[in-house]
């Protein structure tokens, strides 16, 4: 069904001499938009982002302000999801927590991506000693147990801000992306069109930006996207065990850590189920988008 539709589209487009010529990037976007699951992911993520951005308009409560007169309240017309152990409004914390979780995930991904792009590009493009040095460095970082390293850094620093938290995640997770960038650059280096670019006298800068990056961008974007999901989970996990962003700043992770108390776990599911679902849905949405991007950039992996 799907394929027969595709065929007719192609035949039509051949018949039209004036049709717009699509670049490989435009073709990828086209393929992406045809992927329903990925579209659902985009919409869901968009709704969550909107909720996070417009949090002040969706609730009157301050997520940091505790009210010791109203501790561990059940849902009411004022506090839709009740209050936590310090009397802070759970609904406000859920919305503002989305801000922190998404910010951490996105900026950690961007940070990791920039380290990975620069180091991976240097290693893959120049090879030789530079490559050797960078690759041994990735081996070193990969050999360090992430959790122990993160806990040690955080414990030594004492006070954790979002900036420090993002940096810790980035400096422990750049090797994977670096290797991906290096790998695709290495394989591109041997391509004839790169030799051709050298033959016309193109500078290294031009070769990297006009020839390497456009050809390597697919897998990089896909991996960066999927990495963002992982980073949101890392944030939640660290917050859950008390090594994340400290109270009173709300994050989904430290909201769930409330559920460490049996009483809340049993009698106040409205306090910890929404942030849990928030993490689950966000990560799922991002992963759907990532899979959609993978299929869009690499038509050969099309499994439909």
């Amino acid at each position, binding site marked *: 069904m799907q394929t027969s539709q595709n065929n007719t589209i192609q035949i039509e487009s051949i018949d039209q001499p004036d049709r717009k010529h699509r670049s*490989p990037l435009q073709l990828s976007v086209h393929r992406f938009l045809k992927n329903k699951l990925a579209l659902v992911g985009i919409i869901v993520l968009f709704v969550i982002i909107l909720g996070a951005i417009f949090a002040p308009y969706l609730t009157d409560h301050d997520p940091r302000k505790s009210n010791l007169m109203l501790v561990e309240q059940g849902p009411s017309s004022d506090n839709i999801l009740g209050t936590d152990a310090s009397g802070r409004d759970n609904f406000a914390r859920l919305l503002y927590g989305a801000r922190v979780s998404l910010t951490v995930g996105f900026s950690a991904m961007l940070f990791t991506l920039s380290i990975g792009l620069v180091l991976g590009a240097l290693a893959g493009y120049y090879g030789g000693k530079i490559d050797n040095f960078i690759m041994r460095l990735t081996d070193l970082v990969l050999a360090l147990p992430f959790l122990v390293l993160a806990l040690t850094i955080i414990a030594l620093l004492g006070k954790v801000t979002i900036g420090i938290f993002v940096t810790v995640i980035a400096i422990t997770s750049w090797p994977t992306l670096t290797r991906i960038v290096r790998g695709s650059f290495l394989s591109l280096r041997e391509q*004839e069109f790169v*030799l*051709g*670019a050298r*033959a*016309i*006298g193109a500078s290294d800068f031009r070769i990297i930006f006009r020839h390497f990056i456009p050809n390597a961008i697919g897998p990089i974007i896909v991996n960066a996207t999927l990495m963002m999901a992982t980073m949101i989970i890392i944030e939640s996990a660290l917050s859950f065990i008390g090594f994340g962003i400290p109270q009173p700043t709300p994050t989904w992770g430290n909201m769930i850590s409330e559920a460490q108390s049996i009483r809340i776990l049993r009698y106040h599911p409205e306090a910890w189920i929404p942030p849990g679902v928030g993490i689950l849905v966000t990560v799922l949405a991002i992963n759907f988008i990532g899979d959609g991007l993978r299929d869009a950039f690499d038509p050969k992996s099309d499994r439909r």
Partner: protein
Amino acid sequence: MTLTTKDEQEILVDVKNIKKYFPIKGGVLKRTIGHLKAVDDVSFTIRKGETLGIVGESGSGKSTLGRVILRLLEPTDGQVIFNDVDISYLSQRKIRPQREDMQIIFQDPFASLNSKMSVGQLVEEPLIVQGKMSKEERKKRVIEIIEKVGLRADDRQKYPHEFSGGQRQRISIARALVIHPKFVICDEPVSALDVSIQAQVLNLMKDLQDDLGLTYLFIAHDLSVVKHISDRVAVMYLGRFVEIAPKQALYTNALHPYTQALLSSIPVIDLNEESNHKQRKIALTGDLPSPANPPSGCTFRTRCPQAHDRCAIERPELIELETDHFVACHLYSEE
């Protein structure tokens, strides 16, 4: 195209004793344990406006030679004098202005074009890199060359994936010629194409040569393709030239046993069974020896039907047997 006037005999490319050895690394410490002699002491000249064909089996070093001449690979030893400038030891930065005058067309039209760029961008890129033209001038030049290679001006908006192999090779040709180079290395430009398309592309290249006064170094792996386009032909075996001669002389009076074997392997449809011209096929036995460990003396002796004792001891040098006809074989040299 025959060259007669003295003017046109001016030398454009002078290759002197060029060598390209690739180190072979081995052992735990990745030490260099030997050298692969891809190009081993090759010298020749190309005159302005002529086409020198280079023929050899895969692995004979012909593509490496082309790339070393353009300094896409660094030579191990020797000199390349292009346009009276010794380019073999210039830094890559200093060599950039020279690249305007020398270009390369690659074998595989699917690998040699960046698939993320449109035809217009691809053809315009050399002009942007050289940075001597305004946007308007560039556009004019791009349209001009695209039409010259037999594509339409509208094709500029298209992407390589929308073209067939032959058309893609036309794009490669347009890209190489858009900056009006003097010298073009054609690295098996038709080997990846269907036979029916080969002739079209070859004719196009020949027309463009006449039009733009180009000098070609034409690399191929069979003699029949080279015959069509070359003025002189060199035969390469294991990194060395074994014979180099004007086309006529080479095809009618090949001296080196390897050239003779290659010529006899061109299939001929002979309807007249009683024909006196019926040639005996000289079948070469064995494979090309490894260039990492070439035979002593004459490297061809392991497969040569006429090898004798001397071939194993002494390496034959290229000697001029007739005017412009050089051969490296002990059959033709005195003790």
